[in-house]
């Protein structure tokens, strides 16, 4: 477990200005942040930005190529793909954020608990987590989502549940590490105020891998949700969903390429934004990668 981290000294304001300094040094993280801001704005503001109602059918101009009226073209019943991509983003991004935070919070709490309890409870929990983690997550998620029934909520639930064991293991490891740290033992000899400060720093150090992982997970969750959408689990028609759009577009792949390309590209860009940010967060919080 990492020892003293970059964040040990200083107050929150200091941490934030350090964050800004390192942010400026890493153009890719800034790019990620930029992408996320644009995507979030576009998705949240879909109501204003979308030129058409995403469900509005217009069989006259079905399967139309990209043009000034329809930036991303239209689908097989004439719906504007650009609008559908904007609204579909709500599903994908929403799922991504929800899954990452829910699994992180629930899993970490459970892992912390397990670590603190120790003994038999801890062993059993860890064994159970090991078992779940050895099932390939994609398959397990798909199976679970299929069993629960195809719907956006069930997809979200399935992805979250499958992700939780990872955080349980991570948080438990961190908890155990904390207990063993030399300066925790030393802290016990300090007075009450210093102990408080040391505990605060310990908590922050222990949290950084979890924070890093959560940020990185957002991108993965978005990809997973899209994968589920692709095979027909997840948000159902007529709700727009990026993965499902790629799947339907597959039927018209060779001639109406825009149908598949644009929604898929949206998935790519969004996941990339979150991954870039996650990488940046990890570089900032992981002291081991610093040059000696």
């Amino acid at each position: 477990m990492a020892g003293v981290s970059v964040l040990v000294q200083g107050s929150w304001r200091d941490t934030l200005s350090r964050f800004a300094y390192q942010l400026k040094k890493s153009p890719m993280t800034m790019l990620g942040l930029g992408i996320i801001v644009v995507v979030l704005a576009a998705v949240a503001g879909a109501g204003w930005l979308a030129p058409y109602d995403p469900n509005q059918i217009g069989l006259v101009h079905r399967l139309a190529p990209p043009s000034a009226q329809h930036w991303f073209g239209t689908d097989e019943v004439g719906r504007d793909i650009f609008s559908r991509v904007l609204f579909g983003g709500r599903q994908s991004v929403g799922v991504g954020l929800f899954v990452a935070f829910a699994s992180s919070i629930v899993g970490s709490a459970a892992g912390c608990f397990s670590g603190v309890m120790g003994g038999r409870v801890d062993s059993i929990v860890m064994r159970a987590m090991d078992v779940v983690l050895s099932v390939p997550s994609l398959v397990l998620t798909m199976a679970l989502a299929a069993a629960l029934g195809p719907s956006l909520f069930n997809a979200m639930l399935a992805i979250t549940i499958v992700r939780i064991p990872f955080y349980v293991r991570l948080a438990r490891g961190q908890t155990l590490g904390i207990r063993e740290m030399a300066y925790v033992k030393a802290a016990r000899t300090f007075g009450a105020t210093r102990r408080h400060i040391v505990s605060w720093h310990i908590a922050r150090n222990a949290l950084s891998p979890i924070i890093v992982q959560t940020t990185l997970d957002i991108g993965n969750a978005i990809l997973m949700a899209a994968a589920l959408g692709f095979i027909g689990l997840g948000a159902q028609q007529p709700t727009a969903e990026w993965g499902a759009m790629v799947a339907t577009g597959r039927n018209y792949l060779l001639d109406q390429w825009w149908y598949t390309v644009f929604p898929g590209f949206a998935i790519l860009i969004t996941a990339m934004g979150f991954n870039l940010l996650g990488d940046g967060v990890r570089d900032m919080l992981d002291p081991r990668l610093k040059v000696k």
Partner: protein
Amino acid sequence: MSWLPIVKKRLFSLVLVVIGVSLITFVISHLIPGDPARLIAGERATPAIVAHIRHQLGLDLPLYEQYWHYLVRLAHGDLGMSIRTHRPVLQDIRAFFPATLELALVALFLATLIGIPLGVLSAVYRNKTVDQVVRTISVTGISTPAFWLGLGLIVVFYGRLGWFPGGGRLDQGLAPPADITGFYLVDSLLTGNIPVFFNALKHIVLPAFTLGFVHLGIVARQIRSAMLEQLGEDYVRTARAFGLSRMTVVVHHALPNALIPSITVLGLALGDLLYGAVLTETVFGWPGMGAYVVESIQALDFPAVMGFAVVVSFVYVLLNLVIDLLYRWIDPRITGVS
């Protein structure tokens, strides 16, 4: 005999995992509404026939008994019968596994062939342009939905350019080579069947690249990270202090040491590729386990899904064991006295 305890530990793990996995998938498959007996019997069956089938399959027994029977059968290598294909699941999997393995291996080969040098360059020229480019490629790789990339490649390289076929392992009408290993590339070479070899090669390029592209990113990042760690080590400083050239230090000292811990990641990548092939196979019509399991999920054919999960988990644990042993064998510090 430093490896004996770990072998024992892993085998124990194996048993636990198989049981655990089967339990999980068993629970999941009983979450579904609907009556499997009715599904098998078909729509026109009379209630009597449905009841008969239900009894035959033991579906009228209490759940824990059903599970127990399943475990017993599992111990004998019987994974049950697929509802969709009406064949034993094990037979299905055995038929489709080589195709997936071949694809996964070629993809892994491509990913490491390109990924390792990229990772090294990225670490050596840290934060310079090369690094930024490689990191961009890496991030793009892990952010790309494989199914979309596959479709995109089909549009461009099949639809527009016609350079590669759009799916399958061989052209329609071409007979597959003699089944020795199940790998078309290997078998065709072994039997001297050159036209089939090239045909199979053409078919594997796009799907392997699709699969491999994601892992290219993972490999490059892993190597970059491992290399950065090695390059920060004291022995690198010593080597430089004694005048060894950059190239020598990087390739002959740092890289081998970086590869040792990376073996774990690379080995796991193979595991990931095996089941990550799921959607890529679907997109390319590749007749492998992945396509099989997706169709099974969509058809709610849970014996098949359970069978797949159990097999893949089994393979995964075995793979972990092999990796662990390999790691111990390669790192002289663990091997012990020379």
